């Protein structure tokens, strides 16, 4: 008879607990990291009365956490990838929006600048059009400066976010290690039943951590979770944490890298996912390359315009001065170099060979190696690194101040700071060299019909460029002499190169005919040089002469746009994968309120049934007592 009470009470207790568990599920339906729990019910040990074995009721033997480690791992991996893409997307979208379709007005400024050269060519004597040209040059320079300024402020932003991420990662790691200790202790105290809410918290922290940085985890038999970042560098080992720190880049103190305090090694290269991986990738793959490309175009604009200036004469009859100045290529020694050797770098083979890549010059066993940081290819540069015989490769030439030690490294950046450093250094409008440097003339007494071309400057550096030269034809006019020099055979239309310039005499000269070439000083109405400058935007100067300045800008626009588009696409795809992973986790661990409502009804009915059983037991007992009392 007592059995019915015992069994009923065990059921009432069990169902009471089941209702508690269900209520707890409902209460935590929106709690991040909460995993649905179910009550484990087992039959109580049966009692035998000698003839039959009858069950002794039900026992609640703990709660079960609906958790799938596989689904959780999948979600964490997906979150790391998504975190990386989100961070990358943040920066590509910012650049995309800042630059629009004109690189932030740069392409318009360049068009206006070259058009202004055309206007000067139309009115070479007009101060107004010359002044306008200087104004346009300034707007080109400020467009380059603005564009690179935006990039640099993005880099500053990357730094501050790296610092934040590292702080958060460290605090999460600390919390995980604390939870590890609590879980180990809690499990022991609970007779092997792990404290579910602590597990939930830890899993949630791991999930949060996976958004910041790509991780891998292992679980120890005692329930401790070990977390590794990057290439297997431990972050949490049971109750211990290894904190991450930020350190200055060995070449560039303004760029932060990630280090592992245990080994103080830079592990940035191993961090490829999570928000932190995205930040590092945005800097290495988006911001710095864009700065380099901008710098490459800025260098091209500056060098071509200045070179053209040098070929002409200004209003005072002097060879043109530079319109632009641009920062020289950078070569920075690593902070880890063991000596004080410095490197200086110049562009070696003109604009065509200048690339938008960065290079690392390193030394091993006395042998130099120049590695392209964007594709990892390396070459052994020619030369000895001295001023007489510089190291040359990839369009740059490098001179070292001494003999480098083994292991020394130098970062060579041919164009990184050029856009920021582009400045207009010409302020006097009369100093714009619109006129050609030389003029040619046929003597009035010539009786032949030969004509002389206006002439072009080949080498503005020739000291005798502007010296007057007379070309005199012999009689018969089958040869000519230059300034009374040796006879040169005459071919109509052939090039005559003297003192750094080139002219052609064509037609039939008469014996004794003379032609003169001299300085074009006073030729203020000449526009040959301005005309040539106006056409430079379409001349192939970059990439071995295959790409013009306009082409370079278009390529930059398409390149950055494609990158943003590709990252947008990848982010959308990864977001879908992540939604799938989340759905998978939720379908295992999430709380469905309908389901809980059904459970509540079920337990309520079970509880009511058990209570009825108790009432029946009671009535049986009362019946028995009543019978005895009679």
């Amino acid at each position, binding site marked *: 008879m007592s059995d019915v009470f015992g069994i009923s009470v065990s059921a009432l207790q069990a169902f009471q607990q089941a209702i508690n568990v269900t209520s707890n599920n409902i209460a935590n339906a929106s709690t991040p990291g909460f995993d649905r729990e179910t009550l484990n019910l087992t039959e109580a040990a049966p009692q035998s009365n000698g003839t039959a074995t009858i069950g002794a009721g039900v026992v609640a033997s703990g709660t079960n956490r609906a958790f799938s480690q596989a689904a959780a791992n999948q979600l964490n991996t997906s979150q790391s990838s998504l975190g990386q893409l989100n961070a990358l997307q943040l920066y590509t979208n910012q650049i995309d929006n800042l630059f629009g379709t004109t690189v932030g007005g740069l392409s318009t400024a360049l068009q206006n600048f070259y058009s202004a050269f055309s206007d000067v060519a139309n009115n070479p004597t007009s101060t107004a059009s010359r002044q306008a040209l200087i104004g346009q040059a300034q707007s080109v320079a400020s467009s380059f400066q603005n564009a690179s300024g935006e990039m640099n402020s993005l880099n500053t932003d990357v730094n501050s976010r790296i610092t934040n991420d590292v702080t958060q990662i460290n605090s999460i790691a600390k919390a995980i290690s604390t939870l590890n200790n609590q879980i180990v202790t809690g499990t022991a105290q609970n007779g092997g039943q792990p404290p579910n809410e602590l597990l939930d918290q830890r899993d949630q922290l791991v999930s949060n951590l996976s958004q910041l940085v790509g991780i891998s985890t292992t679980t120890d038999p005692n329930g401790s979770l070990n977390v590794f970042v990057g290439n297997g560098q431990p972050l949490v080992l049971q109750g211990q944490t290894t904190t991450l720190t930020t350190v200055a880049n060995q070449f560039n103190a303004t760029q932060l890298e990630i280090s592992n305090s245990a080994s103080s090694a830079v592990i940035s290269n191993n961090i490829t996912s999570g928000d932190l991986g995205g930040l590092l990738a945005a800097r290495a793959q988006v911001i710095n390359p864009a700065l380099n490309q901008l710098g490459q175009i800025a260098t091209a604009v500056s060098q071509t315009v200045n070179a053209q200036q040098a070929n002409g004469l200004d209003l005072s009859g002097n060879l043109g001065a530079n319109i632009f100045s641009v920062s020289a290529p950078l070569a920075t020694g690593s902070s880890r170099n063991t000596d004080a050797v410095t490197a200086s770098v110049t562009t070696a083979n003109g604009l065509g060979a200048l690339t938008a890549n960065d290079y690392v010059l390193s030394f091993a066993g006395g042998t130099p190696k120049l590695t392209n940081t964007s594709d990892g290819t390396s070459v052994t540069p020619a030369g000895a690194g001295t001023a007489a015989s510089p190291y040359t490769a990839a369009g740059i030439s490098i001179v070292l101040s001494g003999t480098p030690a083994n292991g020394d490294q130098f970062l060579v950046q041919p164009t990184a700071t050029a856009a920021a450093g582009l400045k207009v250094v010409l302020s006097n409008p009369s100093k714009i060299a619109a006129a050609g440097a030389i003029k040619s003339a046929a003597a009035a007494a010539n009786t032949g019909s030969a004509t002389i071309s206006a002439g072009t400057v080949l080498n503005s550096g020739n000291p005798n460029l502007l010296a007057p030269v007379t070309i005199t034809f012999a009689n018969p006019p089958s040869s000519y002499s230059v300034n009374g020099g040796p006879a040169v055979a005459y071919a109509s239309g052939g090039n005559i190169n003297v003192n750094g310039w080139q002219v052609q005499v064509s037609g039939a000269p008469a014996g004794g005919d003379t032609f003169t070439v001299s300085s074009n000083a006073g030729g203020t*109405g000449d526009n040959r040089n301005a005309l040539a400058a106006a056409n430079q935007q379409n001349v192939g100067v970059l990439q071995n002469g295959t790409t013009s300045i306009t082409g370079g800008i278009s390529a930059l626009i398409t390149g950055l746009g494609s990158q943003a588009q590709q990252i947008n696409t990848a982010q959308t795809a990864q977001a879908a994968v992540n939604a799938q992973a*989340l759905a998978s986790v939720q379908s295992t661990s999430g709380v*469905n309120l309908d389901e809980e409502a059904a459970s509540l009804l079920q337990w309520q009915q079970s509880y009511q049934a058990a209570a009825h059983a108790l009432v029946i037991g009671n009535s049986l007992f009362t019946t028995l007592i009543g019978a005895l009392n009679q």
Partner: protein
Amino acid sequence: MRITEGLNQTQFLTAINALESGINQTQNQMSTNLQFTTASQNPTAAGSVNNYTQALAQSQQYVTNATSAQTNLSTEDNALSQVQTQLQALRTLALQANSGTLSNSNLSAIATQAVQIQNSLLSLANTQNGNGEFMFGGFAAQTQPFTISATGAAYNGDQGQRQVQIAAGQTVADGDNGDTVFNQIKTGNGTFTVAAAAGNSGSGIVGATTLSNPAAYDGGTYAITFGAAGAYQVTKGATVVATGSYTDGGTIAFNGVQVTLSGQPASGDSFSLAPSANQSVFTTVQNLVSALQTGVSGGASSTALNNSINSAINNIDQALSQTSNVRATVGGRLNSITTQQSVATASQTQLQQSISTLQGLDFAKAITTLDQQNTTLSAALQAFTLTQGLSLFKFM
């Protein structure tokens, strides 16, 4: 699969976000009238649009250049047409002076008129364009190109000729230098010139000269020396090239040239035939003025005057022909500018079309898209509210 309320809400929010950002983008497209406003929305098209925009700006600049050249060339053509008028007037004066019946005072009056023409020519040669540049100074646009001198006018300019770019790879000169227009004018008939020696005492006057066989003329200098009774010999240096006998109005021909004389040269008179040299139109005018001012005194001098005036008329004809030639090239340049302007207009239309095809917004399509997006969004919102109402708890 178990769907939890939390997941349902997360997925709904993601979907709503995507729909709303789609609507935002369509709105943005419609308010800017552009298919894309950032490069990532269509990277290839953005790069192409940059190329096209640059080509369009350049084409527009070419039209600006062409207009500037057109203005300068019209100014030049106008000046040259006045030069022609002045030269024609001068030629008429020279013919008038050549009639042989005029007194010294008549000749002097003609000389005064010729001097006025000389001044007009000088001022035309120093024409300035709208920017104050001397049109006929070559590159030396800020130096007055012609200044009067004893023998005509000195040229202070150079032989430069400014080019203006009117299309990719096509430049057109926006003027001509004064040396070409006024200085480099061949004397005589353009190939050779015949002059009477200063000391001639006969009445031989040089008439028409022609190059009958260009291949036979060697470009040399010859002397025609008369003996008694019209006998002459032609020498080149010490070599006798031809001999013959001349009668009044007869033609002396040798080595591919023909020289017609009139009058009767005296024995010992000589005429020289030399290859044409360049002579400034101002020198031509100055020589004419000097001859007219010297006037006539006696028979020989009248012959000399006639010879001088004839020579001047030849040279004026050469100057007129040179001016016509230059005007013809100016006309040709103006033509090619007009052609190029219409080509540029067509190519600009083409470029604008290309840009609009790539970047312009198809409004009908955008409105349809916006409509679809709105429908989808309101359907999604409605569906969410409906499903949110479904809960077992409501039935308990």
